[in-house]
């Protein structure tokens, strides 16, 4: 039986980079028993993201209120849950996550049966590695995640992820809204899901800005730390 995969692309003002990504995705050859659908979640963009994405044969989920990355991705999860998808893959709309690397996540999932597979920048040499300050932050979250989940996840801030049905069900109920990547790992590991990492090569973003600017990076660290600690304390739902 073929498996249905939903590619979730959360977009906020990605009108410049989205055509290239969709072009690449639509020409992608997946292993034969996989069926792919693409969901573009337009998080209340002020540019022409919606119009541009509408030109392609994709599911366009248009949010009327800006929900932030977490709320946008969760919309994709809800769509996946309601339409019976087996796997959801988050792929950021800025071009950092090359669609050509998708099969690595899928293969890892097939091989290990992990509930969540993270595309990691650090397990492999080559490709874009992001700035020094950002690397410090990433190291900090690696450390915090190791304490809270007991797992060694190197790239806990990576948004390039695969979720299976179990993970989708959990994320539909409870998903951190603003900076969900590191915190959701605590959520998943508390629920007893297995998390795997696989090396991927990422690119520098094609266009647009990161949702985490230098100015708010301290706020980011504090907020994510608090959110991780409380998810850790809270009973799994």
């Amino acid at each position: 039986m073929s498996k249905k995969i939903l590619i979730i692309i959360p977009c906020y003002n990605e009108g410049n980079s989205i055509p290239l990504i969709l072009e690449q995705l639509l020409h992608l050859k997946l292993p034969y028993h996989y069926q792919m659908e693409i969901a573009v979640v337009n998080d209340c963009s002020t540019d022409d993201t919606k119009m541009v994405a509408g030109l392609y044969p994709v599911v366009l989920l248009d949010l009327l209120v800006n929900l932030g990355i977490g709320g946008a991705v969760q919309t994709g999860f809800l769509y996946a849950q309601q339409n019976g998808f087996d796997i959801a893959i988050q792929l950021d709309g800025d071009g950092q996550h090359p669609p050509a690397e998708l099969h690595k996540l899928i293969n890892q999932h097939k091989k290990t049966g992990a509930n969540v597979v993270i595309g990691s920048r650090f397990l492999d040499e080559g490709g874009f590695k992001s700035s020094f300050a950002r690397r410090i932050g990433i190291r900090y979250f690696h450390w915090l995640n190791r304490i809270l989940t007991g797992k060694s996840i190197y790239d806990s801030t990576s948004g390039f992820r695969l979720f299976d049905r179990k993970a989708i069900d959990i994320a539909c109920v409870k998903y951190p809204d603003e900076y969900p990547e590191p915190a959701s790992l605590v959520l998943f590991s508390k629920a007893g899901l297995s998390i795997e990492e696989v090396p991927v090569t990422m690119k520098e973003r094609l266009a647009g800005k990161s949702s985490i600017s230098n100015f708010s990076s301290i706020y980011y660290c504090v907020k994510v730390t608090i959110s991780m600690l409380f998810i850790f304390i809270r009973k799994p739902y």
Partner: protein
Amino acid sequence: MARIQLITIAINILFIAYISRLIIKGKLREEYAIVWCICTFVLILFSFWRGGLDVMSKLFGVFEPPNLVFTGFIFIILIYLLHLSVVSSKAQHSITRLTQELAMLKEKMEKAEKEEHIGN
């Protein structure tokens, strides 16, 4: 009755009238009005009972009666602010759910419309 008492009582009555008006017009939900009603009740109590503040300060062991007023009210205000944060968090959660549902409904509708178009 001292002048200050009359002034506070008058202001209290105006305050109660305003709260009632807001509730009647549907601009203030009853559950939030409870706090405001209790506040006005406390204020009225102390405007009639002038020596009340001294009695209460002695009871709590506060030397300067005004300090009791500040401490008490700052505490109440903090609790109320916390309550408001809870309310707004809940509202935000509801808005998120609504937005997500709406996005999915819109998608479904557009798809149906397209199919109908092709069918015709």
